[in-house]
């Protein structure tokens, strides 16, 4: 949103007080993040239903709009109109707070998501940390929801969630450390820019033999982190009814739903930026060559000016990243509709005994490889 704000600042900036500028920045940022998360969630829900439908030899939604593309809106209206029930014995305050906390956490995490190489909500140097920290916060909301519902199934669900996320956050973080170490930055935008060589194909995945195992480990851990099948134990439909969401209905329930899809997108974004080249692709490369890359240039008068000619490049870059993210989301959906669910002890065993040591090995291997490369070829 820096681009938008820069525009405002360039045109009317001198006439506005600082606090108003900051207010505008905050409001636009929140509005855009909220809109984006809603859109992503709605599109993902539609995509999930279509993907599952086609995997299962059926069509999925077909009636609301062309191939049911308005289905999510219809569902949203239905959820808004549903009765908002709170169980009598529930802890009312926590029960109402939990879905909000879950959604707020994932919205916060989106602050570190770069829209394009030149447009961002917040150019955060510790972007990876921020995303992982915020997405861990959703766990607190889930545990809160399970506890406040005061039902045995929900407590099972939330305890499983807590155990699972604690187990899988370690391999998630460590496997992400491999590309971070190679890149030398935690900033998503900068990490993406480092992969621009070879006509936009110098993805981290191709630059180090330890990247591929790290990516696989990261993907498995991300599945567990976002509670997706085969690690959907906190919801485990056939075991725990609906896990921690059992007692929720209507719009509060849909908050959990939105969080799940937003988290999927965000995890895929991390994977896309740190393994699959982020914004970079041959298409982005040639768009950059053709249109120019800088959005803000120093004009003839010496003052900063907006370079509108570069906008197509930024559009191409943004679409590239979003496409890569949805590729990851699609992979997660594909797995969900193919694989059975693993058991809780198998989840724990896999997390602690296999993924964590393997991800540490990956870090070690990648570090040695980079050091060796540096020693042999210099830089």
């Amino acid at each position: 949103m820096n681009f938008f704000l820069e525009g405002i600042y360039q045109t009317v900036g001198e006439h506005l007080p600082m606090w108003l500028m900051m207010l505008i920045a905050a409001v636009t940022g929140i509005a855009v993040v909220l809109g984006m998360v809603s859109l992503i969630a709605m599109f993902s829900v539609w995509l999930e239903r279509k993907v599952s439908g086609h995997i299962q030899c059926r069509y999925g939604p077909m009636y609301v709009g062309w191939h049911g593309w308005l289905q999510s809106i219809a569902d949203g209206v239905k959820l808004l109109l549903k009765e908002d029930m709170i169980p009598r014995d529930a802890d009312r305050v926590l029960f109402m707070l939990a879905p909000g906390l879950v959604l707020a956490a994932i919205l916060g995490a989106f602050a570190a998501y770069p829209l394009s190489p030149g447009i961002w909500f917040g150019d955060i140097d510790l972007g990876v940390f921020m995303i992982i920290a915020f997405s861990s916060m959703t766990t607190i909301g889930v545990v809160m929801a399970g506890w406040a519902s005061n039902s045995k199934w929900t407590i099972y669900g939330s305890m499983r969630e807590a155990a699972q996320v604690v187990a899988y956050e370690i391999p998630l973080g460590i496997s992400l450390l491999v590309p971070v170490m190679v890149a030398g930055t935690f900033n998503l935008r900068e990490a993406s820019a480092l992969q621009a060589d070879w006509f936009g194909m110098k993805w981290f995945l191709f630059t180090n033999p330890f990247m591929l195992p790290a990516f696989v480990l990261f993907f498995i851990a991300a599945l567990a982190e976002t509670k997706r099948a085969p690690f959907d134990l906190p919801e485990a439909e056939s075991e725990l009814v609906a896990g921690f969401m059992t007692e929720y209905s209507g719009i509060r329930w849909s908050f959990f739903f939105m969080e799940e899809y937003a988290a999927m997108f965000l995890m895929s974004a991390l994977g896309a930026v740190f393994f699959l080249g982020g914004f970079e692709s041959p298409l982005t490369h040639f768009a950059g060559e053709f249109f120019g890359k800088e959005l803000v240039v120093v004009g003839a008068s010496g003052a900063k000016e907006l370079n509108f000619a570069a906008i197509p490049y930024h559009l191409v870059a943004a679409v590239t990243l979003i496409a890569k993210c949805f590729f990851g989301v699609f992979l997660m959906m594909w797995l969900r509709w193919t694989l059975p669910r693993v058991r809780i002890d198998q989840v724990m065993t896999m997390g602690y005994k296999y993924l964590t040591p393997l991800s540490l090995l990956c870090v070690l291997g990648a570090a040695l490889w980079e050091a060796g490369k540096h020693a042999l070829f210099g830089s």
Partner: protein
Amino acid sequence: MTRETQSTPAASTRVQRLGAGELSVDIRTPDLEVNFGPQHPATHGVMRILMRADGELVTGAQPHLGYLHRCAEKIGENVEWLQYLPYTDRYDYLASMNNNLGYSLAVEALLGVEIPRRATLIRIICAELNRIGSHLVAFGTYGLDIGAFTPFLYTFREREWMMALFEKICGARLTYSYIRIGGLFNDAPPGWFEEVSRFCDVFEQKWQEYVDLLLVNQIYVKRTANIGIISREMALDFGLTGPMVRGSGIDWDLRRDMPYMCYDEIWRAGAFKIPVARGEMGALGDCWDRSWVRVMEMIESIKIVRWCLDNMVEGPVIADIPKTLKVPLGEAYVGIENPRGELGHYVVSDGGKVSIRTRVRGPSFCNLAVLEDILPGSLVGDAIAIIGSTDIVVGETDR
């Protein structure tokens, strides 16, 4: 004593003095009592299992039945022989053809009536197709219990065709009442046998799909192998039948061992085998073995159907029996191999128009009893897998 402490007898706080200043406190939280059902996605109907759990570990389980009790057996003593037939559809609604068959055979044993050959062969075709349909549901929903959604829809795709076949032959999709006392309701429509043959061809390919997709899936194997183990002795003690007992490595199938209709002829012709579990993926008698038996039985049923199609004869499909049936004095018990095990009908007649005793030995009901012994010690996730592997139909346990 307050009411609070009475309700949690398992709670105990043990304080042990070890030495000067040392204090060891062993606080045991009470086991969680979870009502598993009657409305729960994995109980396959309205069954309630009162489960005690220590965290994720199940420490005790007690099935509670009766939510679907409809007095089926008592009704059998109040309506005429022929009128009871539709009630048999309702107890194991996934295998209605077999239920019809069991009751018809029991009454026919009293009547001593000769069933036309064509009727017998069509009966076998229907019973075996119904067995396939029932096992498809069992296998598909078992996948659902384990967490695999998609195979469920694949199995239902083939079951849909099976039901369409039944719709063509008798007009109903679930409760057929097609196999009547003395024969069949009517003859198969033109082209029906050809379509059954086509179904067999297609099904064999699809069956391979289920095996590849789910049965040998690594996660599926890890989830089902070595859990819910029923030893040979246990299987015999509990009187398990059907895939449950064959899943424990006991070679027992009524179609061969207590033959009815012309199954012995088909067996002698070598048309089918009886799959008996060997404990391939883990201990003998685990959940995987039971699901393997079901999957293998489907393909054996196809072979039986093929044999019947090849040996089909022309002729009438119902014996000459009066509309108001009077059954001679006597009693009869006929057990048949239902998809879930031995379905026995015991009928007593005083020579009148109404039975004076109708009793049913339901396979699901007898197989269910073993749950109380095999559930404790498993995890909650396993408990669902074990309940699913017994493949009960609550309509039949409660009748």
